[in-house]
């Protein structure tokens, strides 16, 4: 089967992702990171008097907003032009674990049973999509970065602060996965 349409293995994707750190630096003197886009969106739309949003977002952030627009297009290209299988290549163990918790459909990038417009009216949907999204944005900005800014760029810079942030990411994620997800599904 066409190797490009198949899911890409970690040893291809990981190094390519890592190359974006020197690439953004050499091409634009920019520090690679995605969560600052959330700040720029706030500054550009509803700063509402907060000092945190009072800065020249066009000069500091237009590059980043353009980049994330590219992310949206990239997702489209990957699925519609390159192509991707309907079902993710996840391990049987994961399918088993999630089945035990009640999931039945494993097609698509996200579980359709959880991530649906209809589900926005249910507690599971509200917690997963709205509270979850809120925590991603709040936490990333509080920590000063997300997986791209801290886990990849920050650790590549050998910054202990980023190692600590990444530890936080994992502790938080593990707590939810093991303690909350079973209750939600």
């Amino acid at each position, binding site marked *: 089967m066409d190797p490009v349409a198949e899911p890409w293995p970690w040893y291809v994707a990981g190094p390519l992702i890592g190359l974006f750190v020197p690439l953004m630096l050499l091409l634009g003197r*920019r520090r690679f990171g995605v969560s600052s886009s959330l700040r720029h969106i706030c500054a550009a739309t509803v700063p509402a008097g907060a000092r945190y949003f009072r800065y020249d977002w066009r000069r500091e952030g237009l590059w980043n907003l353009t*980049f994330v627009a590219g992310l949206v297009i990239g997702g489209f290209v990957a699925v519609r032009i390159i192509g991707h299988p309907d079902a993710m290549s996840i391990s049987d163990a994961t399918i088993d674990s999630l089945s035990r918790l009640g999931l039945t459909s494993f097609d698509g990038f996200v579980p359709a049973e959880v991530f*649906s417009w209809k589900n926005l009216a249910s507690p599971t949907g509200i*917690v997963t999509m709205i509270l979850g999204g809120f925590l991603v944005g709040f936490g990333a900005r509080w920590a000063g970065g997300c997986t791209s800014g801290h886990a990849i760029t920050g650790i*590549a810079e050998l910054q202990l602060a980023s190692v600590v942030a990444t530890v936080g990411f994992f502790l938080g994620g593990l707590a939810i996965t093991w303690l909350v997800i079973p209750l939600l599904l």
Partner: protein
Amino acid sequence: MSYQIQEYATDVERTRFAPRQMAVYLLMGILFGIILTKSEVVSWFRIQEMFRFQSFHMYGVIGSAIAVAAVSLWVVDRMEVSPRQEGKSMLGRGVKAVGIRHIAGGSVFGFGWALTGACPGPIYSLIGAGAPIMIVVLISAVGGAWVYGHLRSSLPH
């Protein structure tokens, strides 16, 4: 020993819009979005797999990304790649202070990461990849950033 990437608006970007430079960033974003999607990093299922330790995939992605990025920065530093703008070096030196923000903010982010199965990059790419419901997650994330921006003076950092 620790680096600090020094951002410096290129001459071209000082004009604020710089379409050709923005085209470069757009292309970079498209490529990155393709990579994230094709490697399934954007998948909620993959993130669950990661937090359940049921596959090496996500650890391999993140680990090899860090390794390649770290070596690249070392190479950039060693080659003393000449910065074309006013003699300012691309890699400063210095250790950033570790604060409560890193562990606390990090944990809060982690809660959201496990719930949504996505960090910011994947949220954007999923919208393009056929999951427009993620727009709700994006708006919520912007909301979270907004609330943070207004509460931050009361939060420990």
